[in-house]
């Protein structure tokens, strides 16, 4: 199997369409890679028969020549375990949904199917998307391919690793507070969260409804553009879906004339030195490519994590109420009453972090506390959004680190929820403000002689500027090779 095409979706689709490889061959080698990498625990369930059957159908349709092959023809795409594909087990990383097979398919997944992709469901994740390391999965944590003693980040852990380990060239995750960008940074791949509303949420199991976006992973920005053009665009099944055309590549040759905002608040004391060095070097590179950097201020940054957790947990406490043992999922009888059944089912089915967040969310919405917490957080959210609007008056996009630290060790932050929450400090603002944001690799930090850990550079744009944002990052990747670095155990190219 050509290693390059395992990391280049565009090239892979082209070669299948050209008849150089069959979809069946691609499917088989993907299944083999999944098997070989099973130690990483990136996949929860893979129905090999369904995958192979899909590949055969694609080959047959290509031979029949009845339809134009779609843009992702023959490309395997890993799906996070919270994206519905009819009839395939969907657990959201939770014991509560063991065995659940949704009776319908998510819009984004259907669009992948219509484009000829081979969905590989499902990848491991923090339970119900609540976590920043993958350690909240009830099926065991996913391991970082750069060093298996480290977490890959979360909550879209498995999807990040599928791409990072070269198993699939593309993966879908969901980003509510950084759950795609942060693991992208920690695993050395590119991850993109669109403007809120540009990609349908129909069929994405909801966590924080006003924050969630289906977000893709890839090894390069061109592939992010490719998959974004397939999955984005108005969906009449989602009332929050914007009436805009799908995301298309924007033309851009270089970064000349680009004004890049650098927020002081993102470079404060809490930033790891190694991360600071990589990011500042990347900023130098950006400047040398013709961009002008401009200092900007986002004064309400320090309240972003609190605001995010109040809003997200409130919405989650409501979104997860449907898991009551009545219509789907596992059921525990409890004391035999209806209320008892529900309480026992949820107690047994949810892990600690989920319970913590449901309790917190219930509290911030409860009578007497609403204005003090949820009502207030919704106002601070406006302040944060206004900070960015003001900043974008003097720049075209904002650059900063994606994560304050590189990947951290398994178990390092599990004792203190607040410490874990702070992993998201640089990513949550884009969700709060509904802005497009992506993370691209910008070097590695040397932890020891044998261990390098990747660092991510975050690009944040004004609302609806998805195309321009991606174009700038694409130009950056055309002139640099940070994104070509692969984890030592699986890739064939040594880090630059």
């Amino acid at each position, binding site marked *: 199997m050509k290693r390059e095409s395992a990391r280049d979706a565009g090239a892979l689709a082209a070669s299948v369409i050209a008849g150089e490889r069959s979809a069946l061959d691609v499917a088989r080698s993907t299944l083999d890679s999944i098997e070989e990498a099973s130690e990483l625990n990136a996949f929860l369930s893979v129905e090999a028969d369904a995958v192979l059957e899909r590949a055969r159908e694609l080959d047959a349709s290509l031979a029949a020549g009845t339809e134009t092959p779609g843009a992702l023809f023959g490309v395997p795409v890993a799906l996070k375990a919270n994206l519905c594909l009819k009839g395939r087990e969907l657990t959201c990383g939770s014991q509560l949904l063991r065995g659940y097979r949704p009776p*319908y398919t998510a819009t984004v997944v259907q669009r992948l199917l219509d484009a000829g992709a081979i969905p590989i469901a499902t990848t491991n994740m923090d339970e119900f998307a609540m976590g920043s390391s993958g350690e909240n999965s009830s099926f065991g944590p996913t391991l970082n391919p750069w060093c298996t003693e480290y977490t890959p980040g979360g909550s879209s852990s498995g999807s990040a690793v599928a791409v990072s380990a070269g198993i699939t060239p593309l993966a879908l995750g969901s980003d509510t507070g950084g759950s795609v960008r942060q693991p992208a940074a920690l695993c050395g791949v590119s991850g993109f969260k669109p403007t809120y509303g540009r990609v349908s949420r129909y069929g994405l199991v909801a966590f924080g409804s006003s924050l969630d976006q289906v977000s893709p992973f890839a090894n390069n920005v061109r592939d992010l553009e490719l998959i974004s053009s397939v999955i984005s665009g108005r969906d009449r099944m989602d*009332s929050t879906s914007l009436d805009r055309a799908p995301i298309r590549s924007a033309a851009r040759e270089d970064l000349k004339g680009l004004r890049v905002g650098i927020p002081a608040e993102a470079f404060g004391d809490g930033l790891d030195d190694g991360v600071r060095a990589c990011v500042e070097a990347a900023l130098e590179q950006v400047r040398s490519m013709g961009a002008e950097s401009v200092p900007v201020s986002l004064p309400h940054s320090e309240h972003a994590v609190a605001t995010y957790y109040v809003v997200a947990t409130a919405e989650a406490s*409501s979104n997860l109420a*449907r898991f009551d043992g009545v219509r789907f999922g596992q059921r525990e009888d409890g004391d035999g009453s209806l*209320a008892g059944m529900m309480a026992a089912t949820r107690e047994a089915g949810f892990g600690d972090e989920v319970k913590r967040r449901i309790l917190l969310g219930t509290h911030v*919405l*409860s009578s007497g506390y609403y204005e003090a917490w949820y009502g207030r957080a919704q106002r601070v959210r406006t302040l944060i959004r206004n900070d960015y609007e003001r900043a974008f008056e003097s720049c075209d996009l904002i650059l900063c680190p994606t994560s304050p630290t590189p990947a951290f060790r398994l178990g390092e932050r599990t004792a203190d929820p607040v410490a874990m929450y702070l992993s998201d400090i640089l990513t949550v603002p884009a969700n709060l403000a509904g802005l497009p944001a992506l993370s691209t690799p910008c070097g590695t930090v040397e932890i020891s002689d044998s261990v390098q850990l990747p660092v991510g550079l975050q690009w944040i744009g004004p609302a609806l500027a998805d195309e321009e944002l991606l174009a700038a990052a694409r130009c950056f990747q055309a002139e640099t090779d940070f994104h070509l670095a692969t984890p030592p155990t699986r890739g064939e190219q040594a880090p630059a």
Partner: protein
Amino acid sequence: MSEVLSKTSGVAWTPVIGLEVHCQLATKSKLFCGCANEFGAAPNTHVCPVCSGQPGALPVMNARALELALSAALALDCDIAPWSKFDRKNYFYCDLPKGYQISQFDKPYCTGGGVELASGKRIHLTRIHLEDDAGKAIHDRGPHTFVDLNRAGIPLIESVTEPELASADEAFEYLTLLKEVFQYVGASDCDMEKGSLRCDVNISVRLPGEELRTKVELKNLNSFRNVKAAIDFEIQRQIEAWESGDESKYPVQETRLFDPNRGVTRTMRAKEDAHDYRYFPDPDLPVLRVDPAELEELRRALPELPAARRARYVAEFGLSEYDADVLAAEREVSDFFERAVVGTDQVKETANWITNELSAARNERGPDASLAELGVTPEGLAEMVALVAAGTLSKAAGRKVLAAMIETNKSAKVLVAELGLEQVQDTGQLEAWCREALVGQEQAIADLKDGKQKAIGALIGQVMKASGGKADPSKTREILMKLALGDG
């Protein structure tokens, strides 16, 4: 001010009653998904990922539901809010698939408005809001509770009155008028038997001039009659409880269910836990803004409402208040009547044919039958009425013709010819029958000469029999009288 006398002490108490009425809107599909809005279907056959709360499913609002809700509000003179939003009302129950109801909390789509009772007293509405219905939990089908989600997601409007009703009769009247209005604008068929109208009562009693006392909620009222009975019972129950002098017996704030078999209310829960629904704006649904131009369109498209029609029937057509009430009560009937009297002066007669014969025929077909099903058009009825007015048909024959019109859908003229029901008005023929009838009726003749009109009935009957029902009764009477009085 309405008063109820205590059955034990004779003291006059004032009931304070407010009603919360839920009406299902008459849309084709549910509020947030495309499942059919249909009563009586086999269980769990109109359910989709959205209304069954499958993980990942999302709501999309039904435009027609908003239109009907606005029409209902306009018909009640409500103040329409320029914008409104949906909130989640969070609680757990087996018939609530999402674990929350999508409702409207602090920004309902309208406020104010009201209904005027016959007495002239106006019952004000506090607000009306939109929300989605829950499924059905059936407890008496077996050893478990059975859940059917067909009803989950059906659009509802909940209208809340100020606590201004003061008697069971007023409550009954209010419900009747509300139902009329909603039916008129096509918002809902308000059928309690089908569950498209549900009513909860909030009730307390107080002595004249006092502050409000503890209020109790009544549920499980499945007919207007039961609403009345429940209120009547509860008023006395509360009065007795207060008059007992025993604090432990005083009414407590609780929810009580009405038992229609025994005619009593009983406690639903030992102690009412105040629900904390943790309302917050539903992030899946954007704000609803009402376009003033579209609102004007809806206002213009409103039909003339029952109260106005009643008044017009009395003033313009000279109908009695009773007749006007009956005709105006249902829009279909009222529209039918108005078309049937176009260009005629047979207003009273037409009204009678509609309220008597046509209504009876409709009722025979079942409780949900419409006038339209009978196959008689307003113009067709008018034709028949005209024939009776012209004397071509006797009233009895008219009834036969109408029955045949319903059965065959043929016109009156055609049927009259087919059935040979034309009234005989030919004096010669009538005289012949009359003479025959008078044979051997010396006593009757004598009575008639004496001024005792009773005897004429049987004689007319004889003539009708001889003529196979076709003799013109009034002409017959004339001729009989002439012959009887003129004879001998």
